[in-house]
């Protein structure tokens, strides 16, 4: 029997039952490895369910720090009989199966080419605990204890984390530590060492471990959002919940104990976006968090906000499909529906953060951009970034930074006699001045409506007035190009005719694929697009490469369509490279696809050269 051997480079997957308390134990496992200085990237693969359905937690341990999903499983912790067969099948040859052998299993349920490690978890629990809930919860900690021995993990790191978790709840501390010891003692006494090992390293640095939804919520707090209106929808609900948590901590007036924020759980997405628009119109920074189906419901209001030029921020944590589609799976499939959201000629600013660090940054930036540009701004994250804890650069805030409230005409400016036309382009950048309601007794009031207006917000159905306004909106969009986060270029070690464009949560897999390709002698330059409208650098990148692969996590190549449509790119030069089964894209997939595509294109060029 071969045994997979690896130090600090393997994938371990936990197959659990939803609601069994496994999530916090599994997180403890991942964080313990981080505390040993070894990067990990865990991913929850979970059902739309609270209790009973299968759930998985896949942890990639990688000393080099690749945080994308690798694919393949080296060790399966199979705690769910419902998914046993599929789970066992998924293990790499020579890999390990860890399971509860309290009840005997027929030999047919195993494989010959994997290493089986049985441990009587249920028996141990039943012998130790009488309370059924304790039996279930501590079973999780016991297997973490056993794994820590098998993988040679530092028990101190785990105990320390448990102590931090139960700080102030000391009654729970001792039983947890006991369960951990129980697992460790059993493994030490009864189990054979295996080939996978965690070895202390120093590759985590000052990075933090946080999910993108919490990061975006914190970014909204730092960015000055005071109104959040939302409607629960997976995978975005934890944005509003985190905003609530952070506001309770940071936004309560210390003297009066009153809140400098308001969170309204609306009756639906139509109402949540309506509230955000009302607040934005009235000069507060406001946002909503939602997912694709929610954005669909908001369409009419988004159009109004675009034409009436009202600042607002929409955090779209993208998921797969509609209603009962794949709400708990990840995709980047709302790019077009957000870029062109609503009726009429509309285009919207989109930001594509790559990880929690950028979720924080971009959320704060989105609030500034919305005010500066007086328009809806979409923060396009997805389930993979939003709902998984990720190792990410620490959050940074410069205390000298000031909120950019954009062009707001004050009572003093009006009093000085400044001309006010709500939709008048005074600076040539397409951005007009606005006033907050209640500013001045006789100057600066206006009536907000859709498109039937002139530059002074007076009712008009005249064609030239309409054209003036919508042309100005295009100028404003042009202005936005230079204000949004600019793309990030990574050049291959050798000049190449191949380019790759990617965005958002594809980032960690792409970085790893880039290194793999370089090592294999396949050279590609890469450009990470961080926003729409596309800055000139995007067009230049495409122009300077013969073939550009556009890597996306959707079926239709939506960013590719946007590039073709907005930049007038020749469609034959931008080649879609798509992954859309709901699981996060992997470096293995990207590497393989790019190698095949470049080989085919090289062969084609060779043939063409011969013919010539």
């Amino acid at each position: 029997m071969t045994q997979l051997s690896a130090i600090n480079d393997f994938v371990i997957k936990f197959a659990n039952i939803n609601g069994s308390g496994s999530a916090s134990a599994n997180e403890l496992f991942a964080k313990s490895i981080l505390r040993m200085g070894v990067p990990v990237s865990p991913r929850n693969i979970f059902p739309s369910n609270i209790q009973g359905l299968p759930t998985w937690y896949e942890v990639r341990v990688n000393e080099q720090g690749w945080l994308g999903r690798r694919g393949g499983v080296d060790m399966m912790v199979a705690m769910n009989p419902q998914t046993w067969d599929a789970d066992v099948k998924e293990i790499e040859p020579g890999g390990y199966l860890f399971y509860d052998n309290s009840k005997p299993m027929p030999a047919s349920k195993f494989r010959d080419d994997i290493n089986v490690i049985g441990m009587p978890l249920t028996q141990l629990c039943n012998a130790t605990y009488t309370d059924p809930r304790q039996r279930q919860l501590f079973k999780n900690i016991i297997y973490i204890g056993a794994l820590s021995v098998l993988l040679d993990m530092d028990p101190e790191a785990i105990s320390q984390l448990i102590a931090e978790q139960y700080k102030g709840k000391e009654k729970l501390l001792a039983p947890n530590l006991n369960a951990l010891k129980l697992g460790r003692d059993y493994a030490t006494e009864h189990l054979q060492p295996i080939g996978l090992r965690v070895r202390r390293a120093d590759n985590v640095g000052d990075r933090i471990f946080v999910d993108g939804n919490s990061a975006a919520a914190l970014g909204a707090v730092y960015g000055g959002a005071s109104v959040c209106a939302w409607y629960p929808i997976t995978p975005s609900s934890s944005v509003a919940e985190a905003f609530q948590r952070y506001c309770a901590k940071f936004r309560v007036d210390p003297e009066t104990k009153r809140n400098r924020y308001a969170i309204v759980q609306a009756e639906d997405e139509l109402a949540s976006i309506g509230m955000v628009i009302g607040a934005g119109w009235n000069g507060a920074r406001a946002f909503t968090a939602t997912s694709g189906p929610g954005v669909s419901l908001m369409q009419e209001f988004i159009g109004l906000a675009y034409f009436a030029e009202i600042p607002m921020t929409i955090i779209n944590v993208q998921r797969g499909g509609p209603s009962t589609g794949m709400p708990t799976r990840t995709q980047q499939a709302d790019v077009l529906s957000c870029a062109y959201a609503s009726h009429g000629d509309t285009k919207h600013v989109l930001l594509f953060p790559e990880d929690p660090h950028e979720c924080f940054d971009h959320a704060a930036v989105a609030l500034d951009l919305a005010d500066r540009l007086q328009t809806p701004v979409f923060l396009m994250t997805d389930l993979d970034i939003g709902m998984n804890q990720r190792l990410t650069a620490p959050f940074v805030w410069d205390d000298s930074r000031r909120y950019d409230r954009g062009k707001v005409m004050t009572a003093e400016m009006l009093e000085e006699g400044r001309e006010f036309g709500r939709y008048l382009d005074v600076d040539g950048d397409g951005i007009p001045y606005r006033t907050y309601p209640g500013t001045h007794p006789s100057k600066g009031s206006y009536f907000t409506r859709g498109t039937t207006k002139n530059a002074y917000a007076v009712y008009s159905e005249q064609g030239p007035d309409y054209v003036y306004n919508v042309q100005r909106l295009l100028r404003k969009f042009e202005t936005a190009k230079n204000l949004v986060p600019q793309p990030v270029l990574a050049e291959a070690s050798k000049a190449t005719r191949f380019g790759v464009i990617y965005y958002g949560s594809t980032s960690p897999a792409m970085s790893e694929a880039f290194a793999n390709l370089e090592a294999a002698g396949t050279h590609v330059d890469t450009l990470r697009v961080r926003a729409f409208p596309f800055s000139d650098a995007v067009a230049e990148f495409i122009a300077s490469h013969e073939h550009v692969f556009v890597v996306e996590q959707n079926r239709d190549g939506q960013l590719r369509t946007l590039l073709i449509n907005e930049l007038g790119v020749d469609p034959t030069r931008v080649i879609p490279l798509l992954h859309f089964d709901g699981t996060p894209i992997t470096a293995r997939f990207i590497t393989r696809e790019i190698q095949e595509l470049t080989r085919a294109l090289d062969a084609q060029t060779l043939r063409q050269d011969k013919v010539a």
Partner: protein
Amino acid sequence: MTYIAKPKLHHPALQQNAVGFTRRDYEGKISTLCAGCGHDSISAAIVQACWEMNIEPHRVAKLSGIGCSSKTPDYFLGPSHGFNTVHGRMPSALTGANLANRDLLYLGVSGDGDSASIGLGQFAHAMRRGVNMVYLLENNGVYGLTKGQFSATADKGSASKKGVANNDAPIDTVSLALIMGATFVGRSFSGDKHQLVPLIKAAINHHGAAFIDIVSPCVAFNNHPGSTKSYDYVREHNEAVNRIDFIEGRSEITAEYAPGSTVDIQQHDGSWLRLRKVHPDYDPTDKVAAMNQIQMHQARGEVVTGLLYFEPNAQDMHENLNTVETPFNQLGEAELCPGAAQLAKLNASMR
């Protein structure tokens, strides 16, 4: 009418109110609605109420949905900011606006298509949230701008202009508002400004979700025999349960009425409402009784009007959310941003 600019010149001798504005300062653009439209009378009532209450016009925000009624905010309070939102969604936009600045007076103008059909949900939820606003439903039972379709408030059996009978039960907006938690519910008639103006004033003074259903006949599509929202029908069937005297400030009520014929209610800010009872046993502060009375009058085919329900010590959304006194739109970095030192601590907790 539409093309005539309204002259801005004021007669120098026009009377000013306590905050220095003439009544003309509370007017808006010239109405583009049909001559005789009930909605214009409501706009006039709003102008009168605000002027008499010494409200600075620019401290009012007026929001509306879509429809004839929702056009009217352009026709009153010119110095106020107005927002013509989308169909049926005035309540949510107003809720958000109110969150951003609690110091303004919020007038939400809506119609029966807007509030009873497409926006029924938003209407109901704004009431239950206690948004501090005056919600004016200009109710004519018909879709005017799309030329005469029934709305959801049209009475069962009432006939359209073309003689087609309506088969669906009407949505009774006042009962709905009451059930949904509105703390001020009234109904009036656009043709009765003596009732309407004090009712609007009392609603403005109310600290919470104030709802007034105003039957407002549509002269173009719903003012014929067979309609139950015509001028004639409403005049014949109007059954007022009380009359309001709104007394500003904390001054004593001096007018004399026969003993037992009035009820004085002190409001949250110390001001008084005097209700002259028309129906001696109608108590608008008793929610359950009010519901019964409304149903009873309506079962008799009456259009029941007046102050139907009133909770003098209502709580509004801001109190429920425990927000600061300072309007959110005046908070800056110092109040909103926790700063770099806190972020460093947070970073440390995430390792």
